[in-house]
């Protein structure tokens, strides 16, 4: 059954229709978890004994940072599949994830900077974690630029997949940068092997926000993929039928 599912998902038309049905569910899930996460994060969770209220930026900064790495790994894996098996749909996943991945990376950097100013006394410092995250942003922008620069979308997809794979080495660097170079950014609080050093009342909203951003990514990458599919398959009959249907 699973094989048939993936085989069918390979056809753009089938993917377009299934994605169309899944997007509303992702969106509803995202909105519910967003409201829960923000409510608990802003109102219920107590202030930090050292940082006071400013730590609440964590509810955007950390989920966005996790997403920036998660999305890049999804792109690298999709890129690998695209290169090895030349599957059209995984190519579309790579490029459909680029913009939202870049946005989360930018958001992580910006909110980190807004948090760093009151806590570290500076907007930016060439710290190992911050620098590798900035490199991740340039990788994303490189992927977006490379894809739009190449006319033939199949060739563009191959080039982008290669760049995504080359850049994936940066992901463990970001994660372990705080241990290896031990610069200003503090080490991992949650993504480590023993118990997260964070109280439940603060941890629950954070994990809710993390789930919320993942559901959000699910909705947006499918929306982007649908737009990409229609563009790529513009000459096929089913797209023309679709256009006539939507034009009515």
């Amino acid at each position, binding site marked *: 059954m699973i094989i048939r599912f993936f085989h069918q998902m390979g056809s753009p038309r089938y993917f377009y229709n299934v994605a169309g049905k899944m997007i509303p569910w992702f969106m509803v899930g995202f909105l519910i978890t967003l409201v829960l996460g923000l409510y608990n994060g802003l109102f219920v969770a107590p202030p930090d004994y050292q940082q006071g209220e*400013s730590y609440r930026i964590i509810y955007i900064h950390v989920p966005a940072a996790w997403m920036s790495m998660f999305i890049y790994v999804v792109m690298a894996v999709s890129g690998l599949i695209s290169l090895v098996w030349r599957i059209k749909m995984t190519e579309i996943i790579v490029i459909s994830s680029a913009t939202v991945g870049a946005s989360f990376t930018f958001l992580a950097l910006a909110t980190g900077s807004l948090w760093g100013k009151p806590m570290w006394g500076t907007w930016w410092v060439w710290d190992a974690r911050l620098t590798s995250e900035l490199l991740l942003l340039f990788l994303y922008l490189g992927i977006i630029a490379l894809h739009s620069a190449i006319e033939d979308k199949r060739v563009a997809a191959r080039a982008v997949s290669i760049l995504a794979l080359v850049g994936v080495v940066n992901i463990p660097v970001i994660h372990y940068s705080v241990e290896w170079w031990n610069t200003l950014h503090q080490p991992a609080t949650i993504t480590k092997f023993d118990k997260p050093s964070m109280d439940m009342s603060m941890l629950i909203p954070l994990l809710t926000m993390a789930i919320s951003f993942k559901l959000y990514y699910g909705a947006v990458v499918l929306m982007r993929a649908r737009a990409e599919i229609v563009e790529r398959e513009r000459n096929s009959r089913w797209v023309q039928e679709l256009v006539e249907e939507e034009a009515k």
Partner: protein
Amino acid sequence: MSEFLAMGGYAVYVWPSFLLALIVLVANVVAPMRQRKRVLTDIARKLRRARKEQR
């Protein structure tokens, strides 16, 4: 309420973070919607023109 908005004096850092997040989240939903609409209308226009030439 105003005490909540003050964010313990860090309002100028906390609220822009959340505002930025809102802008980024909304933009990334609006963009694909507009992209799909633009492509569909573009195809529709080309189809109409192709049909006119056939007549």
